[in-house]
C-alpha cells in the first residue's frame, strides 16, 4: 500500500511550495512515520519537530488534511484518503516547512502564572516537610486540565486566535482555570484580573473548536466556560482549602 504525502515546504528565502512524495504504509503507519520515511530515504532537508512519538510531548502538531492533529497520533489508514496533506499549524509563525514558532504561545501560557501560589509553601525552612492533602474530588476539579501537553492544536483551531493576536488562546485560558480551581492556590483574585480585559477570556465565544481537536481530552472550552462563571459571579471560590500537612524530618 502506498499513499501520496503532500507537504507544504517553506523557507524564508524560497517562500512556499508543495512537494509530493509517494510513501509506503501499513495499517499502523502514522503520519509521523511517513514523514520520517521521507526524511530518511527521500529528502533529508524536510524540517519537522517531534520527540516522543506517543502523543506525550506535544511537538508534532500540524495541519493534516486540513485539521490540526498530532502526526504521531494520526494513522494514515484512519484518514481514508489516498492523499495526505501536511501543513504547518496555522496561527503560529512558520520557521521552516512544518516547524512552527511557539514563542507567543508559551508566553501566553507563562502569563497565566502556571504554578500554585500559596505563601505556606515558602521553602525557607527546609528542615520541615510540607505537603497539602487534597481530597479526590478536589483533584478531579483540575486533573483533566493538567493533562495538557501544550501541543497548540487548540490554538490553531480557535476562530478568535485566527484574527486576534492578543487573545491568550484556549490553552492558556484553560490552564488559568486549572490553577485557579486548585484548592491549594490562593491567587484566584489576581488570576481573574489577568484575564478580565479586552483581549482576555471574553473573546471566547464557545465555538468549541479547541475541544474538538484536543488530543488529550483536556476540553479547554469547558475550562474556559467554568472560569468565566467565576467572573460572572455564578460560581464562587473561597481561599485555599487544602489541608497543610507538616512534619519534621
Amino acid at each position, binding site marked *: 500500500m502506498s499513499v501520496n504525502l503532500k507537504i507544504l515546504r*517553506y523557507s*524564508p528565502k524560497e517562500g512556499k511550495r508543495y512537494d509530493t512524495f509517494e510513501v509506503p504504509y501499513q495499517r499502523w503507519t502514522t503520519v509521523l512515520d511517513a514523514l520520517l520515511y521521507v526524511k530518511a530515504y527521500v529528502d533529508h532537508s524536510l524540517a519537522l519537530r517531534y520527540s516522543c512519538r506517543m502523543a506525550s510531548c506535544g511537538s508534532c502538531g500540524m495541519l493534516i488534511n*486540513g*485539521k490540526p492533529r498530532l502526526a504521531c497520533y494520526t494513522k494514515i489508514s484512519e484518514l481514508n484518503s489516498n492523499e495526505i496533506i501536511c501543513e*504547518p499549524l*496555522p*496561527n*503560529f*509563525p*512558520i520557521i521552516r516547512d512544518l516547524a*512552527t514558532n511557539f514563542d507567543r504561545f508559551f508566553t501566553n501560557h507563562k502569563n497565566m502564572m502556571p504554578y500554585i501560589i500559596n505563601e505556606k509553601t515558602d521553602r525557607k525552612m527546609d528542615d520541615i516537610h510540607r505537603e497539602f492533602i487534597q481530597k479526590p474530588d478536589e483533584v*478531579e*476539579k*483540575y*486533573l*483533566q*486540565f493538567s*493533562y495538557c501537553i501544550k501541543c497548540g492544536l487548540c490554538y490553531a*483551531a480557535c*476562530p*478568535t*486566535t*485566527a*484574527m486576534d*493576536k492578543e487573545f491568550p488562546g484556549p490553552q492558556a485560558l484553560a490552564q488559568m482555570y486549572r490553577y485557579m480551581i486548585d484548592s491549594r492556590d490562593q491567587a484566584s483574585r489576581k488570576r481573574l484580573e489577568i484575564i478580565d480585559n479586552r483581549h482576555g477570556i471574553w473573546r471566547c*465565544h*464557545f*465555538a*468549541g*473548536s479547541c*475541544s*474538538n*481537536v*484536543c*488530543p*488529550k*481530552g*483536556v*476540553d479547554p*472550552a*469547558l*475550562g474556559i*466556560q*467554568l472560569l*468565566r*462563571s467565576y467572573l*460572572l459571579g*455564578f*460560581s464562587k471560590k473561597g481561599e485555599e482549602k487544602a489541608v497543610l500537612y507538616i512534619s519534621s524530618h
Partner: protein
Amino acid sequence: MKENREGIKGWLRPYKYGLPRFAYWLQRWTGVGLLVYFIAHVIETSNIVNGKIAWDKMLELTQTTQGHIILTLVIGMCVFHAANGVRLYFAEGGKGLGKAGRPEYPYNPLSLNNKMKACIWVSIALAALAMMYGASILFGE
C-alpha cells in the same frame, strides 16, 4: 514568516469543527444582520412623524414580496440569535456542561455534549418554525 494567522478565512469558516462552530458562525452573522435591520427599522419607522401620506408611502415600499422575504429572514435570525443566545448564557455561566473529571479515551469533550448540540438544533428548528409562521402571516394577506 511573521504571523501566519488564518485570518478572515479561519474566522469565518463554519465547518470542519463540528456543530458548535457552526452555531458560533450563525450567531455572528445573525447578529450583524439584526443590527443592520435594527438601524434600517428605526429609520424606516421614523416616517410615522411625517404624517399619514409619508407612512403609507413607506408601507408601500416595504410591504412588498421582497420586503416580506427580508422580514421572514429577520424573524429567523432573531429567533435563532435569541434561542442560541440563551444557550450561550447558560454555557458561558458554566451551566449544562457537566463536571470536569477523568477523561477517558476516545476523549469525547464534555463541553460539546449532546445537550448542547440538541439546544443548537432546537434553536435552528425554532427559527425555521418562526419563519414559516411569519411567512404565513406576511404572505397570507
